[in-house]
């Protein structure tokens, strides 16, 4: 399945980012083709949203139409910005709800209460929750509060483990107490695991054939984790090649600022929206080529 994941991955690896990364890793392990659309221009991602709030909701709508399934990680700016007043919050939530309603398979993730300024309630909130087939909640979120808002109660709710505490790849071999294990058996496990990783890299990188040698860019190591913690491969891999976030980032930011500025004035707003739509179409067309 082709899945769009909207939200920010590490780095830095904490909070909803680590949780989302777990989700992405699991999807990839399951053989799905995952594309990440991130709000944070420094996070590992295939593509970046141009601005938080309403524009982010619209971009999810536009991008999501090309996927079989969409996972949306609620976070500040997606769709509700920190400090947003009620009208802005309502518009952002409704926009995202409208956007997701058009899509078939939607999962909404809400990892921590702070990730959704203003909380889950109200008509815009309920409209958003209604779009999701599944709602994944972090343990810090009050599931009862949310269940009370939903007509089907807890049916679609699932509390997931905190990402930072979950190994990205669970040990899939029971080594026991270590006796009786041969080097040949270990070699076999090494080959199998590496092959699985290689396969997932092929999917992430969008390559259909040939061997993939994961080249870790040295500057990625500035995010080197303390022993026992870490940033797994996706962050580095999506940063390589033509989809590197560093490429053209400043241009994109300048364009985003210009568009945001234009949208603040009624006279230039239609043109700005047209430009934004055109840009997203160009990006989509470029990507599909």
């Amino acid at each position: 399945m082709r899945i769009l994941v909207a939200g920010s991955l590490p780095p830095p690896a904490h909070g909803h980012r680590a949780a989302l990364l777990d989700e992405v890793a699991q999807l990839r392990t399951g053989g799905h083709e995952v594309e990440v659309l991130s709000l944070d221009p420094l996070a590992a991602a295939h593509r970046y949203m141009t601005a938080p709030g309403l524009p982010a909701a619209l971009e999810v709508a536009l991008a999501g139409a090309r996927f079989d399934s969409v996972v949306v990680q609620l976070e500040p700016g997606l769709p509700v910005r920190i400090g947003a007043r009620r009208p802005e919050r309502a518009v952002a939530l409704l926009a995202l709800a409208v956007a997701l309603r058009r899509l078939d398979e939607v999962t909404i993730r809400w990892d921590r209460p702070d990730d959704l300024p203003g909380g889950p309630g109200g008509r815009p909130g309920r409209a958003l929750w209604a779009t999701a087939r599944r709602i994944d909640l972090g343990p810090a979120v009050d599931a009862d509060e949310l269940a009370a808002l939903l007509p089907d109660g807890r049916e679609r709710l699932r509390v997931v483990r905190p990402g930072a505490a979950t190994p990205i790849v669970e040990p899939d071999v029971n080594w026991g107490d270590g006796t009786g294990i041969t080097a040949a058996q270990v070699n076999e496990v090494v080959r199998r695991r590496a092959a699985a990783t290689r396969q997932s890299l092929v999917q992430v990188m969008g390559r259909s054939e040939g061997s993939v040698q994961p080249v870790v860019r040295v500057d990625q190591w500035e995010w080197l984790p303390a022993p026992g913690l870490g940033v797994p491969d996706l962050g580095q891999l999506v940063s390589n090649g033509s989809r590197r976030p560093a490429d053209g980032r400043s241009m994109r930011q300048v364009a985003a600022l210009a568009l945001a500025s234009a949208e603040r004035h009624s006279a230039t707003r239609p043109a700005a929206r047209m430009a934004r739509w055109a840009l997203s179409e160009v990006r989509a067309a470029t990507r599909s080529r």
Partner: protein
Amino acid sequence: MPDESSQRQRIAFITPRFGAGVVGGAEQMAGEAAFGLARRGHDVAVLTTCARDHYTWANDFPAGVTEEGPVTVHRFETVAGADHLRWERLQQRLVSGDKLTEREEISWVNGRFRVPDLYLYLAGTAREYDALVFSPYLSPTSFYCAGIAPERTIIMPCLHDESYAHLPSVKAMLAGAAAVWFLTEPEHRLGHRLAPLPAEHPVIGGAVEVPTAYDPAGFRKRHRLERPFALYAGRREEGKGWDQVLHGFGTAIVRHRLPFDLVTFGVGDPNVPVGLESRVIDLGYLDSAEVPDAFAAADCYLQPSVNESFSRTIMDAWLGGTLVIANGGSDVVGWHCERSGAGIVYRDELELAECLRFVAEAPEAAANIAGRGRDYVLSNYTWPRVLDAMESSLAAMESSLEAKG
């Protein structure tokens, strides 16, 4: 004293470097073999250069003759090549697989450094020795001097399958010698692929000294190594796979959140990338007394080099009870790992990462696997066995020389 199969012989080991501070498996092997045969009663000399550093070939030791225990050491000054740029160009062509003309090949051999006094010395005295043992093959000291007295020349080439090994000069050197000594069966097979070999070409094996005791805890304490670590020892250079280790290790600890540091000692600039410094610990050149403790203290030993003809360091690791994680691209190291059942092999960075992950997940299993390595080394690669094989070959050569009159 020499055993019944071999009488007292006068033997010269010709090796480009010898002595304290020299890092290089072939040189070490030649030096230790010289001492071993001398202790068995043979009259042994080491003919070498004044260089310690294989990057600069500067004359660090004084030229002349010294007695080092039972061995007489003759040192000859190196002379640097005049046209380094030309040498670099030829080197690049060789590495890229380009064929050199005969003159270019000689120019390359002679272009980095020469040892003219060694050549002249051997030209005058070669026939005073019963055997001249040249090692390794890739050195002007072997290329030039092996042709002086081929009837008593033994090449201990320490071959690995690299572009230099396919040079016509190497083929001529191997084919023209009276004997070739190989360290392992894969090296022997490579030798057959490279040249028609003389009748006398035994696999004599390699050997390492077996430490009497280890102090891993003391080593960790002395060097403040608080986290588990993977070890790399030797020359920190691309040709030995150091860059690959850095890359693979960085990938592994990021991908699998591994707890390891990478501890290294040896020569060459480790050139640790920015951001990885906190996880790579360079101990520089370690005193030889500390080396066994380093191997025993490690959680695993990384052998990324494909250019191995024997690999002493993996033997040291196994003796210390440490798991070897080796590059399967090396026929020799892969062969050791398969025969011993004490090492695991990788073929790319992903597999290297998985090997390290295994050590983190199952340290007991890793230790159990490594435990088989010590028996393997003790059964196959000790000096008495190697010296027996050398003496047997020397005796065969002597008989052959006598038969020819």
